[in-house]
């Protein structure tokens, strides 16, 4: 498990990361969410040891992380870059060797991963000859090649087409299922929602929410959608609720006083037919908007 405690980093007068704490648990995909400049990349770079830490600590398996530990992590930096002019397989083998792999082992692993992404026949091409999406796949292969003990991926899904997103997601899940903690950042909330078991939301350098994706959702405001046979305008008169939206026969209401939804339902049945009365689970995007506001 990776434990991040009180991590702080200042650039001049700006505190980019301010007392950030969260866990990345073994075998679990942790999504790192936040807008531009929220401090995701800075945090990840500190976790990887490429950026100094002003305060706080990164712990790995219960003790302070060492450079040797970090070398066994898999890392995908924010801005993509391998050697544009070098052949794909050659540079993957080189990066594998830098991670301590034997050349032959690195070559086999690289070929397997390239095949998986449908890039086997392009392995002799120069990186710059590939489309951006394919370059991204090669980048991921570079991070996974040496069977990392932990994965830290900065925006691994950006620039991928839906097919590639699926195969990337499968690959990450597969790695997580072997007990590897996976931390990845994304601004695509729907994707994070689909993939993540846990969630850390960062805003202006601070953690504003962290925990189980389910828990976070249930922490959101409780809302009900009501669909009637007739006009639903009357819900505005009911006390103890907040009407989010009324559109003809449909209304979205938020419960302010506990039990108020029952009042709405009784009133509705008294006034005629009820087509639908259902709780609306807030999307991650709603939670994000709420906490990051």
């Amino acid at each position: 498990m990776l434990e991040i405690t009180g991590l702080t980093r200042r650039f001049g007068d700006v505190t980019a990361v301010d007392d950030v704490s969260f866990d990345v648990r073994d075998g679990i995909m942790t999504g790192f969410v936040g807008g531009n400049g929220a401090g995701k990349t800075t945090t990840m770079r500190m976790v990887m040891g490429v950026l100094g830490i002003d305060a706080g600590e990164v712990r790995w398996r219960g003790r302070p992380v060492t450079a040797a530990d970090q070398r066994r992590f898999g890392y995908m930096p924010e801005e993509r870059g391998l050697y544009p002019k070098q052949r794909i397989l050659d540079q993957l083998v080189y990066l594998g060797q830098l991670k301590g792999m034997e050349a032959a082992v690195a070559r086999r692993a690289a070929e397997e991963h390239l095949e998986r992404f449908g890039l086997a026949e392009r392995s002799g091409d120069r990186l710059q000859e590939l489309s951006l999406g394919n370059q991204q796949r090669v980048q991921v292969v570079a991070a996974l090649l040496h069977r990392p003990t932990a994965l830290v991926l900065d925006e691994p899904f950006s620039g991928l087409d839906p097919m590639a997103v699926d195969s990337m997601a499968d690959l990450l899940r597969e790695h997580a299922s072997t007990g590897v903690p996976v931390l990845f950042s994304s601004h695509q909330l729907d994707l994070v929602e689909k993939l993540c078991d846990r969630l850390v939301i960062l805003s202006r350098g601070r953690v504003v929410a962290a925990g189980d994706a389910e828990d976070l959702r249930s922490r959101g405001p409780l809302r009900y959608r009501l669909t009637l046979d007739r006009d639903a305008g009357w819900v505005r008169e009911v006390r103890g609720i907040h009407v989010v939206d009324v559109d003809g026969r449909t209304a979205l209401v938020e419960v302010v006083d506990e039990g108020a939804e029952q009042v709405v339902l009784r009133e509705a049945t008294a006034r005629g037919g009820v087509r639908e009365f259902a709780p609306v689970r807030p999307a991650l995007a709603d939670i994000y908007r709420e906490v990051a506001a």
Partner: protein
Amino acid sequence: MTTTLTPTQPAAADEPRAGRSAWTLVARREIVVKLTDRAFVIGTLVTLLIIAGVMGWQAWSAQRTTTYTVAATATDRAMADRLASDAHGIDEGLEVRVDGAADAAAARALVTSGDADAWLHRSGDGWVLTTDSEEKDALTRVTQQVVRQATLAQQADALGTSVAQLEAGSTVTPQLLSGDAEKAGLAQGVAFAFAFLFYIATLTFGITLANSVVEEKQSRIVEIIATSIPVRQLLVGKIVGNSVLAIAQMLLYAGVGLVGLSLTPYASLVPSVSGPVVWFLVFFVAGFAALAALWAVAGALASRVEEVQSTATPLTMLVLGVFFGSLFLDGTAKVVASYVPPFSAVLMPTRVLEGTASWWEAVLALVLLLAAAAFVMRVAERLYRRALLQTSGKLSMKQAWHAPE
């Protein structure tokens, strides 16, 4: 196709194997990439061709003789024959053939038609060498000498004496108090050649090194590398890789040059050049390593390839200074500078070659140069490490020095 994954082993306490010898991997990559770079290979081949071409031309033109046909009428035939027999002895590259002409008009016609290169005839008190539209310098020089000798001999005879007697006591022979003329000239030539090679090699490979550093920085692959191996290993690997390439290229050029030299009339000089070349190479390696570390810093200070030119300016000036220093420094300044790194890299082996420095002076200068290289390497490592991950624009040395990690 699926990849089977086995659960990862608990992290070993020791450093990954590559962590210790990673610089060899980095150096190897630098070399392989360069050797498979078409521009580099073609550039090297073209330079080799130019060196071989220059040497070949030297050898060829040394053996070449030009034959001139000189027209002469019967009255001037004796002088023309004398020219034909003496010409090759005066200028090895020249031979004269005589073409007899019936009269002046016929001789003139031979020159005009191009059948003869010149017409030698007497006119008034002297002799005239008539050519068609351009003077034949080499022929004129030889003719002047032959005619002068012949006339002198004739007149000496008439005076009852000889040319030798007339010229007795008039020779001037240059003499050097120390060394000999040939060696001094050679030392100058070789010193210039090496100063130039050092200048070219440090500049081209320095810029290559700086660019490869900034390319890694710009593409952010350096973040992946920095999480794989210690930054020091990356720096050392890049310096070693580029130094090996630079030295190999220089050996290649020097080798082809020496082989070429042995085919020219200067062949006898080859053994006396080969010895000092070793001193030059030793100083080259040390000097290059010290400067290479600075080039790596120049690359790290930039954040885009376009900025390298400006971050490398002080370094370019320094390299230029070393080159001009080796050409123009003299006397005490030269002696002092031959101990000062990086000037010593070129000046000390030059002084050894000239015979003005003894071996212990060379060793002292080498120790100083190596110490400077080691010191520069330490400073460069700090600057490199701190500048490498700063991606927002150009940095100054001072900013890099104080930059947080």
